[in-house]
């Protein structure tokens, strides 16, 4: 038999203590795994949705709100901006691309976003079925919208006023589904996309009484905000200031706002990390106590091993190996539990139609879980192992 086999037997010769230590260690590691996975996934989701969007221009208000509503489709928008202003932006020398975003309606809790085909292209979204829209009142569904609503290409549906479910229905203006996007993990998955004109049409048809009304409304057309890509990174220095000082609009840089947001959330994450650390520390202490009392109990047994010819390092190795078993088992259990918790959170967020996080991911940072487990186990086994190392065979002769 090998050391690992003997240490396994010794470990489970005290099943209650072993199970308790395993539980404590696993809980600590599960919390760490969970924190790692969630922050990794949220960062990834943010990065994916932010990719290539240099600045968001919208109505004055909170810049963070503008980013959250415009890029991640989480918050409500700050207001509307005139279409004419957006058109003016298009001819600005530093601007490469302007994607207009109009929102205000929803379909079963999913936002209906009026935009241009540039928005679809920006996220490299592929069609799973059907085609992109060709005229107004046609819609392309994000993958999750299609799955949850069961709508197929050719089906029609009507939007509801407001971003939450249960608003006034725009009954006279049904949309026709022309295509369904393949899931790509971006914000598009949970949106209903339609040409900007559709959004105007729905609201104008609802309120306009005659042609004159329609003309007035056409002149006053608005969009909610615009996603802008720069021609040159240097624009980041001057463009936002130009917008904020010379127009009635507001320009917000997503990178800046997200850093601010993460630093706010970061405090919470730090608290959770500290909690996980305390859990791990408790686990380490518990492992130490268990091994220490094991050495005390088995002093004579360990001395007998020395009598049978085992060198001190072999006896100490036996103790260390017990701790390593705990570390290994706890790593497996902890990572599994952490993944389970993350999957649960992903499921919950999906119900909330919020940020997408995938169920299973194995970021490199996860390597810190076995490293931590190993560290805690070895640290708590060090003193007991030293005690085992020092066990004198002479005690065996005197233990009468």
């Amino acid at each position, binding site marked *: 038999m090998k*050391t690992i086999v003997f240490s396994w037997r010794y470990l*489970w010769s005290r099943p209650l203590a072993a199970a308790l230590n395993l539980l404590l260690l696993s809980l600590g590691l599960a919390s760490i795994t969970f924190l790692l996975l969630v922050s990794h996934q949220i960062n990834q989701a943010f990065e994916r949705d932010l990719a290539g969007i240099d600045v968001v221009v919208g109505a004055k208000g909170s810049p963070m709100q503008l980013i959250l509503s415009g890029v991640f489709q989480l918050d409500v928008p700050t207001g509307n901006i005139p279409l004419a202003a957006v058109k003016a932006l298009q001819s600005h020398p530093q601007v490469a691309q302007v994607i207009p975003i109009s929102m205000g309606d929803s379909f079963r809790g999913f936002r209906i976003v009026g935009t241009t085909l540039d928005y679809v292209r920006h996220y490299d979204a592929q069609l799973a079925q059907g085609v992109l829209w060709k005229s107004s009142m046609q819609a392309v569904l994000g993958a999750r919208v299609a799955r949850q609503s069961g709508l197929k290409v050719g089906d029609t549906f009507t939007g509801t006023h407001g971003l939450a479910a249960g608003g006034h229905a725009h009954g006279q203006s049904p949309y026709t589904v022309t295509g369904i996007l393949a899931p790509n993990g971006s914000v598009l998955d949970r949106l209903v996309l339609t040409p900007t004109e559709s959004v105007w049409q729905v609201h104008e048809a609802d309120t306009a009484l005659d042609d004159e009304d329609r003309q007035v409304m056409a002149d006053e057309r608005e969009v909610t905000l615009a996603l802008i890509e720069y021609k040159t990174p240097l624009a980041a220095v001057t463009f936002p200031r130009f917008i904020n000082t010379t127009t009635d609009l507001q320009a917000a840089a997503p990178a800046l706002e997200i850093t601010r947001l993460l630093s706010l959330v970061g405090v919470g994450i730090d608290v959770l990390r500290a909690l996980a650390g305390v859990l791990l520390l408790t686990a380490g202490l518990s492992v130490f106590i268990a091994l220490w009392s094991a050495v005390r109990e088995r002093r004579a047994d360990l001395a007998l091993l020395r009598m049978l010819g*085992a060198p001190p390092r072999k006896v100490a190795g036996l103790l260390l190996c017990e701790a390593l078993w705990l570390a290994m088992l706890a790593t497996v259990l902890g990572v599994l539990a952490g993944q389970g918790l993350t999957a649960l959170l992903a499921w919950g967020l999906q119900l909330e139609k919020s940020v997408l996080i995938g169920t299973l991911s194995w970021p490199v940072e996860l390597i810190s879980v076995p490293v931590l487990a190993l560290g805690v186990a070895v640290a708590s086994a060090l003193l007991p192992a030293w005690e085992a190392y020092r066990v004198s065979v002479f005690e065996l*002769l*005197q233990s009468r």
Partner: protein
Amino acid sequence: MISTRQLAYRYAGGVELRFDDIDVAQGGVLLLQGASGAGKSTWLALAAGLLRPGDGDMAVAGQSINALRKVAGDAWRARSIGFLPQKLHLSAALTVHGNLAMAQWAAGDMQDDQRIAEALSALGVHDLAQRKPAQLSGGQAQRVALARAVLLQPKVILADEPTASLDDEAAQASLALLQATAIRQGATLVIATHDARATAFFAGNPCQKGLQRLRVGRKQL
């Protein structure tokens, strides 16, 4: 096989314990006698290479204990000394078979199931191989412990108070078993005891290679 010359051990407090010279032939029996605390354990520890002589010389199984080095001492002890402790210290976490396998592990040997089976058979406890120590009677446990002691076919068997807390019948059986095992292995047998029954037993069961007695007692300085 075992010989001592002016052997003495010095305790930490400076007290010195001197032992009479002795020469035990291969296959012989040595009764180490003396009251509790007289120094029998010290003599056994010296013979097992766990302590170093403070003075004089001791040679066991062809090895000078004075010259024994620490690490080499462990390997030497594993092969040369079979030890039957008074409290048996069978590991409760392991089966009988596992307890014997542990002796091979401690000696740094590969596990040899056949050897374990033979050792258990020789002591008539082969059918108990898969039991836990808690499921054994006192006599069975001693047989298992003896099987463990002689597993690596040592040249010297050290038994520490093997008859303590046994009734007369069990004490007889225990001593007979030790004698038979030593004869089968051709090993020298050292029994540390303050039990008069041991003397009586060997009077009735003479040893072919000779019986010696060493009386251990603290001498006045």
